[in-house]
């Protein structure tokens, strides 16, 4: 970078494009859009340096509504486009917007590879456990027995757990949020602050095809009891501090204990083993939310650019020399007359 221009002060409004938002009334996507637009002014980034890249699906319309650069690509492939963008210009702040079908069904391969490579980007996976844009078929995150137009007798295949998939793929930042929850901007800020691929699963309610599918931990009356918001360095407490999580050392799993039990463990986001347990807690446990795992590592684009620099060092881009390389011979004049 040659010059550092100051980032102008902005408000959420400055990050909203002039395009009419076309999601169904009541869709959780509106809440996520608002949360992102509210978060952007606090991130210290310029609009022109920000790129939202999406695949296909309801959530993938997202880039059109941001007053930044945006690329609405093809189904499942947003991470691959993002990789090209970031390698071509590492100064860009890249956000990938995807859904459960986009990221884990048709695009599962790319999700795995962008995570293991650790491209510096934010991946917001809107999980509504359904295919909305194609009118309600079950998705790879739908629970067994989901009745949909394509599974009229209930789905029989077991769902994937997005955060476990991410962890297994080598993600260095795994977090969870809820579309309408006030904590979502904090999760987004943490994801942005993390250098490398930040994977954020957002539970997003589809009012038309899968309404209230997350009610078992999002509905107001039970939220405190069923939500565990993790904070690095803080005890893992929920139910207003009345309950906490402790390690059952004999069975090597988590257990619920009283909030004042000295065995309640403190959240260390670098602990991958505990992170896996938090992600896969049974239904009787609360839902682990916030930053579940964070352990930074060098980013892909930094490694590529560094290698490009090192390999090019001391060499000049002399095209004439390049085409003349190898064993050559000179023809002075025609060697024999015909």
């Amino acid at each position: 970078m040659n010059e550092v221009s100051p980032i102008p002060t902005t408000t959420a409004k400055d990050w909203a494009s002039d395009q009419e938002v076309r999601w169904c009334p009541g869709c959780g996507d509106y809440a996520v859009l608002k949360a992102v637009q509210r978060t952007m002014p606090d991130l210290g980034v310029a609009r022109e340096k920000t790129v939202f890249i999406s695949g296909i699906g309801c959530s993938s319309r997202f880039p059109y509504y941001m007053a930044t650069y945006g690329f609405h690509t093809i189904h499942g492939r947003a991470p691959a486009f993002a990789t090209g963008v970031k390698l071509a210009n590492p100064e860009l702040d890249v956000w990938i917007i995807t859904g459960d079908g986009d990221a884990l069904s048709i695009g599962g391969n790319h999700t795995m590879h962008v995570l293991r490579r650790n491209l510096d980007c934010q991946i917001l996976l809107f999980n509504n456990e359904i295919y909305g844009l194609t009118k309600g078929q079950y998705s790879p995150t739908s629970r067994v027995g989901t009745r949909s137009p394509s599974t009229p007798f209930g789905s029989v295949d077991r769902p994937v757990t997005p955060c476990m998939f991410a962890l297994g793929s080598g993600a260095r930042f795994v977090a969870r949020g809820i579309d309408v929850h006030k904590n979502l901007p904090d999760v987004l800020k943490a994801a942005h602050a993390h250098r490398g691929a930040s994977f954020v699963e957002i539970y997003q309610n589809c009012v038309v095809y899968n309404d209230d599918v997350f009610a078992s931990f999002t509905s107001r009356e039970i939220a405190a009891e069923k939500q565990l918001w993790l904070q690095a360095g803080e005890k893992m407490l929920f139910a207003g501090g009345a309950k906490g999580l402790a390690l059952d050392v004999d069975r090597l799993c988590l257990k619920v204990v009283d909030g004042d039990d000295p065995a309640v463990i403190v959240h260390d986001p670098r602990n991958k083993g505990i992170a896996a347990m938090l992600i896969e807690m049974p239904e009787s446990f609360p839902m682990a939310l916030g930053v579940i795992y964070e352990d930074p590592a060098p980013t892909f684009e930094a490694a590529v650019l560094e290698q490009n620099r090192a390999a090019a060092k001391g060499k000049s881009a002399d095209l004439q020399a390049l085409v003349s390389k190898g064993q050559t011979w000179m023809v002075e004049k025609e060697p024999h007359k015909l």
Partner: protein
Amino acid sequence: MATATHLLTEKEARAHPPMEAVVVRFAGDSGDGMQLTGGQFTLSTALAGNDLATFPDFPAEIRAPQGTTFGVSAFQINFGSAAIETAGDQPDVLIAMNPAALKVNASEIREGGLIIADDGEFSQRNLAKAGYDQNPLEDGSLAKWQVVHFNISQLTLDAVKPFGLGNKEALRCKNMWTLGLALWMFDRDRQPIVDWLKAKFAKAPELAEANIAALNAGHAYGETVEMGAPFKQHHIAPAPAEPGLYRTVTGAEALALGLVAGCQLAGVNMFFGSYPITPASPLLHHLARLKEFGITTFQAEDEIAAICAAIGASYAGQLGITSSSGPGIALKTEAIGLAVMTELPLVVVNSQRGGPSTGLPTKTEQSDLYQAVYGRNADSPVPVIASRSPADAFECAIEACRIATRYMTPVILLTDGYIANAAEPWRVPDMTGFAPFPVSYFDTPPAEGQSVMPYSRNDELARPWIKPGTPGLEHRIGGIEKAPGTGNIDYRPEVHQEMSDTRASKVLGVVNSIPDQDICLGREGAELAVVGWGSTFGPIHQAVRRAIAAGKDVAHIHVRHIWPPPKNLGPLLKSFKKVIVPEMNMGQYKTLLRDQYLVDAQPLTKVSGHPFRIAEIEAAIDRALS
């Protein structure tokens, strides 16, 4: 390719009968190092000033079971003192390293040609593996040819004994012994090979010395052994060539160099996204070493990611390039459509191979023309160009970069397995002779209250290239139909009609910046035009040259710009009484010509995995004229 084509008149071609050209085929087990031997013999041939063309022919298996017929790897070279444009119809000399190599190749040798065999490998077991009941070297079944055989294996072991190698390692020097013999046969200098061996085995000097000893022993064997008539030394005079600096180049090398040149002429950095596939991978290998030219190479997780990353890089202001072969291009198809829709520059290289499906991965074919021109959902026009030879791939790569950046469009560049692997002498181009075509990025923000217009157009209907990072020009693009000008989502019927028309017109407009179609040989309005594209250039050219020399009224037209076709192609084709189209597919370009011009183009097809022979095209010319 014919470094000397333009210097030869028909009369001169007649004056130079094929005696001055020799076709040699090295054949052995895929572990015998035949491709290496052929490659080094090629270099020595080029250094001797002969014109040449090569045809590496190897199995799909990396190491097929030893001694089997399906594990045979061959390398054919045609070289001479006149213009050479094909790897040769029939070998004059076969060097067979084992019974399987003899079995697979013998029938293709010219009658009366020379077969040299390593009889040390003709054990009962190897004969059985190759399917011989009796030893063909002894039973008279090779009477059509002149056969000499000696124990190359033992002679090699003797030669490298002083270096204390194990038996297996020592036998690996067999190919250098054979190369030494071949160098003697054609009166070649050994020094360049010695230098190459020293460089190759710089970290293992004893291996370098052993290989050099084997090379020298093979050479000395030729010099001292009294074999008699068939086995004698030949000297092939250098071929006439335009003065200048020469090197040998394979299609994959020329393509890599051309893409580097194209990006330099455009003034953009290259992003090359690719996934390994035969026979396209060498392009990735070549480019991966050239970081100093501002190239980023990315081996993606699959074909789709490779092209998507390339499109992402183009969006961000570099020139995205992706490369594959037919099956991989099929996977990239949806993304090519997105590049058409978003109007981003992109070069897609297809090194065609035999198909469908996995087909013949290591054999050549031209059967992806339909895929290139028509093979996408909806109306998705894309310029398509095809290179005719390894050296021509250099210019075609530059042309692809030019069209992609000037018109903001994906471009498909067709080459094939034959071109990718074949080598030929190449006069090193003077890069100052190429006019730059620098790209410009649009960076002027709209006036207050005005919209950003990413889909505004210039006279040629190209849209501006706006890089993310440019202040005041934030905008969104995507695969959904969009309004002219703003690019905002808009799928009203009249908008889709207008945008579809515009995309088609833009691509058709490419004809305004390409040259008219020329005639390579013969005259406009002749009795017969032989129309080709891609790697059939060599055999068509030689066949037409011979036909013209024999007084026949034939012309050769070879098309680089497959889509859109040059403006004058229709009227030109209509001037001929008959048109035949030889191609290594079931008649794809023939269909395109019929569709575009209602000309009665007749197909001449071949899908055996091998290039056309000159004789096959000569026969077709005779049939068409009879």
